[in-house]
């Protein structure tokens, strides 16, 4: 299973390279579909069945279909080569390399993982050190640490049931705020595409007037 996971991770990294360095937009989109599907497979291996299904339906299904649809609508033949040998590219690569190095240094210096946990997962599941704060032993007695289900309990209840328990009890307020966010996004999308659909496109003069208005507004 570890070999399978390693292969999936390597393939995901390669297809992610395809997202960034493809010359055509549609190839980027298809690479992203592959990356998303491979990450869904990783979720399945990591015992997150619910997220596996959500990832496939929402990302590989809805979001990527929307992307491909918009690409086909706007610029099916557009070529966009990455800006190689551009001074800004060098600046960007330096910034990204710095960011990545900072993450790795922080990970190496501040967080050390107790290797004993690989054999005694349930009994010392909190045996990790963050900075100077050492957290070993039983944190589940602390009411602020609600994580740390014993694994067999998760297996007995099932991933969807335990996740539903978390979402609808502990995190019910963020969940409701999420529904508000979706409502705002839906209203915003309808507003943004409204005039395009019904108005100016059918009437060239009105479109001209509207464009002038927008340009004046923009300046």
């Amino acid at each position, binding site marked *: *299973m570890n070999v399978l*996971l*390693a292969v999936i*991770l390597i393939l*995901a*990294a390669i297809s*992610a*390279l395809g997202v*960034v360095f493809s010359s055509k*937009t549609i190839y980027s*989109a298809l690479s992203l579909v592959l*990356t998303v599907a491979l990450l869904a497979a*990783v979720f399945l*291996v*990591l*015992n*997150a069945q*619910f*997220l596996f299904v*959500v*990832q496939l339906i929402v*990302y590989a299904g809805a*979001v990527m279909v*929307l*992307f491909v649809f*918009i690409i086909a609508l*706007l610029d099916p033949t*557009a070529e966009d080569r*990455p*800006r190689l040998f*551009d001074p*800004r590219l060098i600046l*960007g*690569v330096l910034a990204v390399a710095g*960011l990545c190095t900072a993450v790795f240094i922080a990970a190496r210096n501040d967080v050390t*993982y107790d290797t004993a946990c*690989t054999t005694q*997962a349930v009994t010392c*599941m*909190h045996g990790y050190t963050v900075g100077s704060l050492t957290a070993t032993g039983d944190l589940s007695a602390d009411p602020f640490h609600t*994580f*740390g*289900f*014993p*694994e067999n309990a*998760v297996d007995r209840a099932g991933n969807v049931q335990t*996740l539903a328990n*978390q*979402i609808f009890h*502990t*995190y019910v307020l963020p969940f409701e705020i*999420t529904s508000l*966010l*979706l409502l705002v*996004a839906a209203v*915003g*999308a309808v507003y*943004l595409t409204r005039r395009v659909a019904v108005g100016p*496109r059918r009437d060239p003069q009105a479109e001209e007037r509207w*464009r002038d208005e927008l340009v004046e507004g923009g300046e």
Partner: protein
Amino acid sequence: MTLSQSMFPWILLTAAFLFTLGALGVLIRRNPLVVFMCIELMLNAVNLALVGYSSYLNSEEGQVFAFMVIVVAAAEVVVGLGLLTRVFSIGRELDVDDLDEMKQ
């Protein structure tokens, strides 16, 4: 013992790599559609790290947060692509170097 717990560092490494690639793509690509895809890549990398930690710590909380991230990403894509169709419909070229009125 959780499945694949010894693979945890590699999962984190892959997540960092995907996030870095996404950030690089946002910086070097000009097509706003590709920029959006790179943002999706970064969000997916964060999801991978969250689920990896969730599996490593035998906790379900990381998966709850990953779920929220997926919802936010879907909302972001809807609004972003709506903006792009509007930009396209007024006859502007889709190029993030051209669309810089808000800098002025």
